[in-house]
């Protein structure tokens, strides 16, 4: 019977959760790398036992860990992230130029075709690629040297490159998102990049045609339809039907359109999920109710999914990389909270149950569907 493995990154270590295809009983291992921040872990789509993990503390900096056995054992691989050439500057919070400086890895995205190739999105925003299983990293410097880069500014969490989407139908096409610069796309495997932010509107950016400056929180696509993108922006839920060339708002009847994660059902490309948060000033769910919102129409019309989720006195957040889906049928949906809960739904969101309630604050959740 097939199964699911969840890779959960927290502020104080990583946890690995496995279940069979029923997804009712979970085995939990961890903490792996106890005491370290694990911003992200992800497995190779072509070799599910090849995992990569981004491990960090302020004391000892960044490490990258690799596993070849599904997370039973790990080895530290390369952690040297050097900007190619002159780092250049971006804008600091006060509007002054500030040199790009490596802070941490936010997101790891393994290649769709080669388990030894993996991309890393870092703070201060840049994209790296390793083609030797993480031993060495080379910057795709065309992004950071884009003419708009001196005008990029950090979001509250730092100037992070947090989303990397690899297009399964165009091997040289990659979408990335940076807070708070916006979405960029390459069609030549990272040599050149274009901002893809037309249609985004953000308070504080009076120019409706501003090329950059939008605080995009996450973007998502369905593998079968990579020209359609969904976005959770600082405020606003958006979609693009032309591979990012233009965006339309689809927030519809959401109780708040502020949030961080957004994900797409594994088998229904028009079914999407978000977790609304009260506001940018109050990073917790509205009315003390933890509600996932699902749209079966690609946005605009949303339904609250509440069965099994706390509906009073709940004040958690769900961070941008902390939601995932599996590809079983029915589709499994998972998310982790800043309160340390990991919730699972084995019926596409209709009902939920906690896998675990008392982990450190959850930063990321990835789901692997195992053969």
């Amino acid at each position, binding site marked *: 019977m097939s199964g699911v493995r969840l890779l959960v990154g927290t502020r104080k270590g990583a946890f690995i959760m496995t279940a069979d295809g029923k997804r009712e009983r979970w085995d939990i291992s961890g903490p792996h790398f106890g005491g370290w921040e694990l911003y992200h872990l992800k497995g190779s789509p072509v070799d599910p036992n090849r995992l990569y993990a981004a491990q960090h503390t302020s004391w*000892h900096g960044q490490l990258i860990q690799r596993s070849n056995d599904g997370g039973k054992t790990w080895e530290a691989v390369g*952690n040297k992230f050097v900007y190619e050439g002159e780092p250049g500057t971006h804008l600091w919070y006060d509007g002054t130029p500030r040199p790009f400086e490596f802070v941490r890895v936010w997101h790891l995205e393994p290649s769709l075709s080669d388990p030894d190739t993996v991309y890393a999105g870092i703070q201060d925003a840049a994209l790296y690629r390793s083609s030797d299983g993480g031993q060495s990293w080379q910057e795709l410097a065309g992004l950071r040297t884009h003419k708009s880069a001196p005008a990029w500014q950090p979001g509250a969490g730092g100037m992070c490159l947090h989303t990397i989407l690899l297009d399964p139908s165009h091997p040289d096409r990659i979408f990335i998102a940076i807070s708070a610069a916006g979405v960029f796309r390459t069609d030549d495997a990272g040599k050149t990049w274009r901002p893809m932010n037309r249609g985004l509107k953000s308070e504080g950016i009076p120019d409706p045609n501003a090329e950059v400056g939008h605080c995009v929180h996450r973007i998502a696509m369905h593998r079968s339809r990579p020209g359609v993108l969904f976005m959770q922006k600082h405020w606003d839920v958006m979609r693009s039907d032309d591979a990012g060339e233009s965006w339309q708002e689809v927030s519809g009847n959401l109780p708040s359109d502020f949030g961080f994660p957004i994900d797409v059902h594994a088998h229904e490309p028009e079914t999407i999920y978000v977790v609304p948060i009260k506001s940018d000033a109050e990073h917790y769910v509205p009315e003390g109710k933890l509600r996932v919102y699902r749209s079966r129409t690609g946005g605009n019309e949303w339904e609250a999914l509440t069965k099994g989720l706390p509906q009073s006195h709940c004040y958690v957040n769900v961070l941008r990389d902390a939601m995932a889906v599996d590809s079983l049928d029915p589709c499994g949906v998972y998310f982790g909270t800043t309160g340390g809960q990991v919730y699972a739904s084995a019926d596409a969101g209709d009902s939920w149950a906690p896998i675990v309630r008392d982990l450190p604050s959850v930063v990321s959740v990835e789901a692997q569907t195992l053969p």
Partner: protein
Amino acid sequence: MIIRAVLPAHLRTLARVDGEVKLKVEGQVTQRSILDALEARYPMLRGTIRDQVTQQRRAFVRFFACEEDLSHEPPDAPLPEAVATGGEPFLIVGAMAGG
């Protein structure tokens, strides 16, 4: 010279060592020569104590020996004789900060 070094807990776990580390250091015993020997033997520690490019000590790491804070000494300054002869350990310490 065989010198003794003590790693903070996270780095002992990372390097998979218990207790002190004994290192053979060629030439003069300095912060740099100790860290060079340490990173050569435990490559996974590269970047965790000092920056891999600038070689500067990470801000939340301190160096102590013989009851002295040597963190701000030049990296090529000779360390106390007691460290160089293995009588006293070179202490690599994670700064005390909450979180």
